[in-house]
């Protein structure tokens, strides 16, 4: 008998992260197995249909949407990178889902800004949102601000309590 599928669109944060569908699948399966066990996850039959920067579309068996959305909320890393998956919409067809949840626009520019005497790379810009990354010797340091914060910092050259 043919399975009745449901499709779930989730926003992936940060928006500049380029997700690999296979890695997203492993992360979701891992979270679902921790929450619902092997039996529950196999009944759910989750699959990743599409993984683009800013949006992930998943599929599951009908009646298991809420369980999969709970599992998505429990995903904290994909392939070692910290991310968050925010379920946005559920639909019975991919067409309706894609129409309802468009891919968020993101400007990519390799600009370097100076903040508090340290240089940060702008990794992603989307509307007011600006994602900055400082490459260190041991680890990357991320900073999530807005355009207004950047302008304020540039104008006043503020210290740590500037934003």
């Amino acid at each position, binding site marked *: 008998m043919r399975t009745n599928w449901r499709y779930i669109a989730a926003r992936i944060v940060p928006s500049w992260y380029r997700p690999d569908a296979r890695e997203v699948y492993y992360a979701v399966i891992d979270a679902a197995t921790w929450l619902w066990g092997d039996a529950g996850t196999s009944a759910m039959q989750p699959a990743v249909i599409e993984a683009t920067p800013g949006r992930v579309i998943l599929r599951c068996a009908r009646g298991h949407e809420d369980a999969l959305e*709970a599992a998505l*909320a429990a995903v904290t890393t994909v392939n070692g990178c910290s991310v968050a998956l*925010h*379920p946005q919409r559920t639909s019975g067809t991919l067409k309706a889902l894609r129409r309802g949840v468009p891919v968020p626009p993101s400007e990519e520019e390799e600009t370097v800004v100076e903040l508090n005497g340290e240089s940060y790379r702008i990794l992603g810009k989307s509307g007011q949102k600006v994602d900055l990354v400082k490459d260190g010797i041991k680890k990357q340091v991320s900073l999530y*601000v*807005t355009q207004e914060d950047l302008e304020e910092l540039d104008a006043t050259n503020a210290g740590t309590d500037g934003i």
Partner: protein
Amino acid sequence: MFSTDATIHPYPAGDTSLRRFAVELKSLGYDSAVATGIGERCEYGGIVFLKGTIVAGGSMKEVIAAIREDRGSSDVIMVCAGDAPFNRAVLTYPGVHILKGVHAVHRNDFDPVAARSAADRGVAVDIDLSAMTSLRGVRRQRAMERLTDVARLSRKYGFALTVSSGAHSLLGMRSTRAASHLLALIGLDAPGAAAALGGVRSVVDRPGPVEVIEW
């Protein structure tokens, strides 16, 4: 319907600025949040940020000192839960709004006596979503067991619940939709989850003690 994230830690404690938190909170379905480390109550982009203070003192003496030091400048005072006598004392002390970290204490440390005190005094108990998203294995099972008990006691005694992400970054936040699904795991149905998401309002807007004014 009000939805408040009961704890966020903006920059410099976290890596996300207050304005960026405002943008993200709006897109995730919230209208307010309790932020630690801010000077005073403020509003950005339609999101109200209440000033929150977390008191992590292990003894009642430290809690009283911290509340006195605050001098009413914080909108929300949250105290981390401890053993049973400590919790009972905290729940009856005026000025405390929320008891945090109940998922991390022993099962008997938040018992029906404490639950009744919380209901009588109008103190809310916080549900930390990060316990359900970040912990793994036995620790998560224990945390969810505690939170299920708290939800059951809340239904029985009527004290308010609040929901917090405890986010230091926008990656730690969860949408109201995701929060409802996570709260369903500890036995809160849709109306219960909605009430918990709006729980901060009920403790902030509660009537204060009667003051005697001389004239």
